[in-house]
């Protein structure tokens, strides 16, 4: 499955970059992620719970790695998740560029899904993937705006 798209963050590129490299922010923003601890440089491990309709809180062990960094405009995020009902492996190539209203993120991702979820839920995978991507990006944008607002009031 491929998930490609663009998203415009309402803030400057440096702030967006810093946001995306912060594991605490990622843990709060990636849908269903309950915790994310550093397991090495730019590598994190944690637990993720996903609920979609009849799928009630499927639990996954998740590993996130950030690679190929070119600050402040390009990196690759790899997400591996394994659980009792299936497993996924996703790679997202992320590019940031300044635009008039903030920072445009261009993402191009490939996600492989296996196990029961893939066998039974094949026809829903893209919808679920798209929904989770949207939730993550909107949540990141809220984080960014909160940060910028705090930064301004502090100075």
């Amino acid at each position, binding site marked *: 499955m491929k998930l490609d798209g663009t998203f415009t963050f309402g803030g400057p590129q440096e702030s967006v970059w810093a946001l995306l490299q912060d594991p605490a922010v990622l843990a709060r923003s990636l849908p269903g992620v309950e915790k994310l601890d550093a397991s090495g440089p730019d590598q994190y491990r944690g637990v993720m719970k996903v609920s979609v*309709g009849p799928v*009630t*809180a499927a639990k996954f062990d998740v590993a996130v790695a950030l690679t190929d960094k070119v600050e402040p405009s390009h990196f690759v995020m790899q997400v591996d998740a394994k659980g*009792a009902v299936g497993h996924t492996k996703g790679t997202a190539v992320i590019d940031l560029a300044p635009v008039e209203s903030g920072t445009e993120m261009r993402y191009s991702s490939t996600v492989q899904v296996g196990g029961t979820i893939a066998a*039974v839920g094949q*026809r*829903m995978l*893209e*919808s679920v993937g*798209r929904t989770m991507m949207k939730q993550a990006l909107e949540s990141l944008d809220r984080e960014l705006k909160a940060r910028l607002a705090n930064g301004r009031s502090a100075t």
Partner: protein
Amino acid sequence: MKPAPFAYHAPFSLDEALDLLHEHGYDAKALAGGQSLIPAMNFRLATPAVLVDLNRVDSLRSVSRDTTTLQLGAMTRHRTLEQSQDVAQMAPLVSAAMPFVAHEAIRTRGTIGGSLAHADPAAELPAVMLALDASFTLASRSGSRVVPASAFFLGLFTTAMEPGELLVNITIPARADRSAAAFDEVSRRHGDFALAGAAAYVVNGADGKCEVARVGLLSLADRPVLAAEVARLLEGTRPSKESIREAAEASAQVDIDPTSDIHASSRYRRQLAAVLIRRVLERAFLSLEHA
């Protein structure tokens, strides 16, 4: 394959069922015909702690009509709908869609309320309810409220129902004079989840102009959708073969958001949508001409 352990309740009355759903909230699932929930539990995709079986609640199983509406209890089986003369007379679109709902064995168990509450975007009945402008009565221990179909389906398997709420009744407006309905879908094998589908309900005025053109679409977004563009382009006009085709193609461009999977690409689904919308509209308007 066996489900994870769960507590099981089989109340006889609606009040008991609502009490149980209130008590257990998010942990509880209502069991209707079990044609989606039980497989999901057996795969352990769904692991509800509590099941509230509605099959003994007789008051939820009913088909009744008055002059302006058809009322369906949520536990009415697909098979009952399929064979009901009241349904055929009051809401022929439901009868037309019924043979496409899975297979006979599933229809003998599956219920209308179960299908609507499950909100599978590939299911037939949610799209039919949108086309018919049906409304749903949701009951909970603290009372009941009525939600139109257009505000009920919020996303993939997601509805406006709150924990503790139960879909108890479906109200469908009686078919108008000079109305017609048509249903069609494309699936790899009959009874499979459709790659795309369309349910049309149209009404013409005495002057031959289209008053209502409602088309519900399935498997073409993360929820059932109403083809708003069709209504915008056709209502108030005298539909021709050409204008129907244009409306179908326009709708397939703007009203839907199809996904790709191993069965069909997004692009192919969009093409199917244009064909199916045109087909159901042509069929419905044609039957009005010959009426």
